[in-house]
């Protein structure tokens, strides 16, 4: 029993006893007891009312009554109240800081719920896309940002990708939108100004395209004359230099045309889903075109004839031939190359498997870079340009596919092109569709 309880019990008892004792002096101890009890009740009531008034008026300074349990209750109440007020202040401060920092963010952040209704947005959202932080609360974000791609992204539920939309405020500006789901049913929509980045990318692309284009005409002239000269009877000492020059001019031509193809691919959009590609047929044709020679390893095709791929036929053909010529280049003549087209639950896979020299792990991440070579010294001997895998990667990007490489030095490498399920169709269906 706490001491305060004991104290008040003793006080009550002693008052009652005192009342009874005084009553006993006048021969009516019961009346004395009753008066004492009434006095006690009155005192308690008074405390109670005072406490209630203090609660209602919030003026705790006025509550100065008594000691013991009432004062203790009061001071505990005060203490808790002050503590919660302090907490509230701290949280308010924290919230203010967070809001300040989100407002200072250069990217727009919009918190939306399951129905894409805006719960909160920062100041950058106003500057970038014209959302009004206060007025647009509860408004569906895709009703204000009426971009088809953004709507698709919000509806898809697949938030790994991001979309670029044109700025609704400034023409020619581009914004990158990303959705990050968090909590039970909330999402964070992040919008970033990527105009500058896209402009630089475009400048780079244009530069490569223009430079390749400009190189092409002089090259045509050079190789044209070289062809003419080589055909004629040349003195013995000139024969070798000229044929070298011719070979290098051809090579340079190839570099330029592959660069042009790359820049064309970069500016092309996503490959459509409307036309289907007969992968098995392309593989058979490629195997026939490159195989059968003595210095070329044996090429086998294991393709699923019943399924087709949705996409651009010439681009897929380019993927197959690029991977195949790469494999041929790196596989000894007694090796074996397998072209495989198979489908599973995850989608379709084009695989090119060789038994060549393999690639060391540290080179794998850089393999698709332009002009990257594992062995610099060998660069010119094998006729490769160094753009093949970059082209493959770009084409796959256009088809929402991914390039995965598995390789072991000395045993061979496998290049997997993994396509999503929506790009794989049964042959019968496409035949009917025309």
């Amino acid at each position, binding site marked *: 029993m706490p001491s305060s309880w004991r104290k008040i019990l003793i006080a009550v008892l002693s008052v009652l006893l005192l009342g009874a004792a005084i009553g006993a002096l006048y021969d009516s101890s019961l009346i004395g007891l009753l008066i004492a009890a009434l006095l006690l009740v009155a005192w308690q009531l008074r405390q109670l009312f005072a406490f209630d008034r203090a609660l209602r008026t919030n003026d705790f300074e006025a509550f100065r009554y008594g000691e013991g349990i009432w004062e203790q209750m009061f001071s505990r109440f005060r203490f808790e109240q002050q503590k919660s007020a302090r907490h509230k202040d701290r949280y308010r401060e924290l919230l203010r800081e967070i809001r300040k920092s989100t407002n200072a963010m250069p990217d727009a952040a919009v918190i939306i719920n399951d129905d894409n209704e805006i719960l909160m947005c920062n100041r950058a959202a106003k500057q970038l896309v*014209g959302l*009004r932080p206060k*007025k*647009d609360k509860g*408004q*569906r974000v*895709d*009703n*204000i940002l*009426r*971009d*088809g791609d953004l*709507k698709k992204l919000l509806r898809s539920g697949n938030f790994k990708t991001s979309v670029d939309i*044109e700025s*609704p405020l400034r*023409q020619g500006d581009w914004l990158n939108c990303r959705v990050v789901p968090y909590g039970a049913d909330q999402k964070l929509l992040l919008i970033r100004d990527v105009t500058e980045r896209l402009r630089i990318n475009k400048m780079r692309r244009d530069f490569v395209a223009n430079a390749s284009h400009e190189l092409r005409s002089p090259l045509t002239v050079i190789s044209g004359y070289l062809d003419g000269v080589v055909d004629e009877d040349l003195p013995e000492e000139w024969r070798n230099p000229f044929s070298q020059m011719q070979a290098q001019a051809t090579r340079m031509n190839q570099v330029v045309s592959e660069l042009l193809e790359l820049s064309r691919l970069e500016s092309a959009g996503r490959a459509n889903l409307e036309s289907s590609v007969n992968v098995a047929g392309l593989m058979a044709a490629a195997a026939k075109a490159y195989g059968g020679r003595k210095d070329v390893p044996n090429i086998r095709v294991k393709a699923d004839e019943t399924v087709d791929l949705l996409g651009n036929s010439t681009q897929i053909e380019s993927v197959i031939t690029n991977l195949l010529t790469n494999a041929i280049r790196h596989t000894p003549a007694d090796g074996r190359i397998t072209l495989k087209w198979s489908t599973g639950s995850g989608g379709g896979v084009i695989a090119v498997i060789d038994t060549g020299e393999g690639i060391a792990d540290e080179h794998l991440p850089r393999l698709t870079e332009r002009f990257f070579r594992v062995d610099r010294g060998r660069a010119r001997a094998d006729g490769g340009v160094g753009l093949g895998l970059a082209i493959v990667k770009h084409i796959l990007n256009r088809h929402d596919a991914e390039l995965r490489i598995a390789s072991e030095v000395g045993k061979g490498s496998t290049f997997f092109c993994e396509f999503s399920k929506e790009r794989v169709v049964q042959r019968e269906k496409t035949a009917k569709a025309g």
Partner: protein
Amino acid sequence: MSTTEASNITDHISRRYNQDLERVRNNVMTMGGLVEAQLSRAIAAIVSGDSELGLKVANDDYKVNRLEVQIDEDCSRILVTRSPAASDLRLIVAIIKTITDLERIGDEAEKIGYLASQLAAMDRPSNSYRELRSLGNHVSQMLKDAMDAFARLDVEAALAVVREDEQVDEEYEALTRQCITHMMEDPRSIRRFMNVTWSARSLERIGDHAKNICEYVIYMVQGRDVRHTETLEQNPPETD
């Protein structure tokens, strides 16, 4: 939150009703977004002389039409099954009118896309149709503002668009005059400038349709809460 059985049911019904209204409204916004995209692509096709893009715009008009039919059906269904009253009724009426205008804008964009594919095959002026681009940007901004006003039920913004239409008309007037001058100077260019004039005409019509949409917005909101629309008193909306 202890709700009785009865209140639960009414809550449920009205929620479904709300969802229906909300869905139609969202579809209108989707349609608006589609039409905006069509218009901006059509303008881009003219300015950049991209005949492929122009034809694509012309071919994509069916999407707008399909949405119009769908929204129209939804509206009829709501009218029949819910018999909406007051602001709900105004919303439905405004939507039915708005989608008609949006569909017309889609048609004009289709026309512009088609004209762009024709213009791409002809000589191009050195300024690559700067006047058309400026008129086009003006009009697409109007359309965007109109749809924003629709989404936000923002009467002020709607009024601003209504006023904006006069400027578009002036710009159109100037452009027509310019085209006539060109045609008189060089009769061989008549064919080309006829196309330009038609494109400008389409853009001007789109401005009118955007203005109409804003008038529906004012109609829709005005009945709901007149207190916050002080400007209306100086500038009564035409709610026909």
